[in-house]
């Protein structure tokens, strides 16, 4: 049994208190520790992904207690890929926060950042539903702190909405877990998968309630319409690096849906039939349409980006709700793309804010570094709108291809294609007002161009764009890998037997104490 799988959770959990206790007043030391922690995290995540690449599922039993009595961590292809994506994203976000000085505008940015990483990593790695709830709470409570980092009334007000919405989500999660436990007597995902399949079709009321409640909880996290109301305000009011990190948080919801609904409530299960094609798919289509309308209607750049995140989550959920291996593979490819593109856009909106009074889409004097910022915005907007040559185009193509056999194929194609056109309009309108119209505004001579953003900030955004380019160039390999990942998800028997049949310390009663 390898202990490395627990490292992505333990490492930030150790770095964070060390930052608070030992380096509280030294922002320099905090930065070094935080970056070193994230770099080590990338190394661990890469080796875990390497290990899982040949379809081995690694199991870690906490305290050597066998499942379903103990809590297990499981690393398969899907969870290691999400862990790797999170740690890589975290590095660039952290570099941006350091370069732009955001981390010095309030206390404890780095500690909260590490705790946030710990929660996200735990949510991706755990194999137990109640443990998933606990890690959700860890990542949420860190995100509350990050969300209101640097203060300000508007931010606090948006923070209240964000916290309240998520508290209701957590309560729903507990109701779902309670009804699931009352029906099955277990909360281990592998054990649940076996027991749910045994329940006869006439006694499924509790299971159906639990399945729908869980879907609601994950849909809140994934900002699916009509549960998306928390997202636009909180993402646009949050500090830009935090909003960029939050780009992975909506994907935590998508990940949880993929994980739980491929394993515990598979599509062939009679009691939860219709959950996806009747409910989730139309909701996802509406999310995409509404997100893109928001892109066109937004009056501020940060809200525009927030709505484009809702739209891209709609795209992810369309692909997931097809619930075929091709659909899941396309969704996983698009998740990577949309995380990177969303994070890059949030960081770019902060670059635009440097030197402007606000982010309103009105002509204002030229900002320092206008050309470079505009170039980066151009690249990221192309990626997000799904035009060639970036990976958004390929991801969209994969989704369309996967939807070809669906009953709602015409709707999916129509909405996906027209939303692409509308989002191009929205991004082009915003970009031309922000960067081109600026030249027609009289510049105050003695005011100058303002402060140019630091080189490190540009490097961080450039890094994200480079990753997007790499995601496009190696699209064949990545999609091949996500296809294998989907195949692994749709045949969960090796996962289940590995979790349930690995002996722990209870399996040898003659050696135990009790």
């Amino acid at each position: 049994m390898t202990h490395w799988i627990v490292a992505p959770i333990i490492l930030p959990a150790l770095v964070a208190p060390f930052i608070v206790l030992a380096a509280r007043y030294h922002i320099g030391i905090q930065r070094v520790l935080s970056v070193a922690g994230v770099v080590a995290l990338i190394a661990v995540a890469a080796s875990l992904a390497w290990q899982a690449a040949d379809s081995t599922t690694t199991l870690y039993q906490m305290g050597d207690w066998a499942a379903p009595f103990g809590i297990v961590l499981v690393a398969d292809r899907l969870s290691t890929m999400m862990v790797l994506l999170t740690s890589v994203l975290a590095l660039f976000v952290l570099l941006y926060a350091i370069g732009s000085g955001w981390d010095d505008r309030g206390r404890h940015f780095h500690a909260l950042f590490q705790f946030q990483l710990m929660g996200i990593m735990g949510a991706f790695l755990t194999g137990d539903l109640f443990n998933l709830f606990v890690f959700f709470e860890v990542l949420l409570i860190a995100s509350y702190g990050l969300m209101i980092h640097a203060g300000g009334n508007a931010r606090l007000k948006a923070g209240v909405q964000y916290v309240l919405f998520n508290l209701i989500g957590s309560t729903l999660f507990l109701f779902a877990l309670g009804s699931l436990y009352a029906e099955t007597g277990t909360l281990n995902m592998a054990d649940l998968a076996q027991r749910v399949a045994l329940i006869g079709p006439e006694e499924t009321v509790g299971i159906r309630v639990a399945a729908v409640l869980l879907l609601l909880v994950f849909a809140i996290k994934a900002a699916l319409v009509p549960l998306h109301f928390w997202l636009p305000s909180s993402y646009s009011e949050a500090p830009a690096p935090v909003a960029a990190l939050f780009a992975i948080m909506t994907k935590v919801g998508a990940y949880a849906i993929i994980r739980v609904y491929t394993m515990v409530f598979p599509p062939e299960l009679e009691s939860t039939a219709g959950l996806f094609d009747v409910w989730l798919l139309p909701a996802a289509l509406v999310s995409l349409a509404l997100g893109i309308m928001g892109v066109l209607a937004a009056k501020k750049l940060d809200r525009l980006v927030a709505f484009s995140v809702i739209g891209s989550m709609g795209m992810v959920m369309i692909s997931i709700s097809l619930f075929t291996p091709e659909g899941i593979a396309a969704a996983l490819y698009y998740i990577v793309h949309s995380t990177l593109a969303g994070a890059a856009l949030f960081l770019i909106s902060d670059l635009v804010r440097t030197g402007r009074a606000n982010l309103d889409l009105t002509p204002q004097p030229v900002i320092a570094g206008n050309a470079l910022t505009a170039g980066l915005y151009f690249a990221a907007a192309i990626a997000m709108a799904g035009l060639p040559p970036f990976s958004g185009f390929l991801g969209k193509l994969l989704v369309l291809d996967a939807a070809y056999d669906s009953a709602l194929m015409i709707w999916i194609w129509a909405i996906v294609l027209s939303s692409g056109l509308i989002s191009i309009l929205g991004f082009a309108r915003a970009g031309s007002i922000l960067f081109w119209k600026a030249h027609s505004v009289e510049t105050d001579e003695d005011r100058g161009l303002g402060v140019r953003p630091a080189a490190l900030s540009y490097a961080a955004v450039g890094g994200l764009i480079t990753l997007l380019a790499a995601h496009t160039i190696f699209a064949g390999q990545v999609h091949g890998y996500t296809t294998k990942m989907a195949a692994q998800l749709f045949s969960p028997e090796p996962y289940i037997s590995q979790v349930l049949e690995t002996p722990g310390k209870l399996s040898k009663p003659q050696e135990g104490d009790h």
Partner: protein
Amino acid sequence: MELLVASAIGVLTAGGIYLTLRLRTFPVILGISLLTYAVNVFLFTSGRLTIGAPPILQDGIDAYADPLPQALVLTAIVISFGMTAVVVMIGLGAFLGSDDDHVDDLPGERSQTDESASEGTS
């Protein structure tokens, strides 16, 4: 007893939802507290209701209470308690800062709060 517990959960949930739909921070926080009380009792009953049964193995006893929901409830209580404290602090900060405790965005004051935000961040 089932009726008593079930109706207690129902009344708590109903009251919680009603208060959550209010527009000001204080009733909403109270509503969420009521909801978390309801969910705590609900979790407790998910292991079936038993009276006077021990949760830990003992000699000569056949009926046991399920210990797992008790552990789950303990975790849920701690987490919801902490979260409520956090939301009270943030809500208080927002109220003291803007002298307004509405949880929704009022369209009229939107521009005003934007100005104060840009002062605070730039």
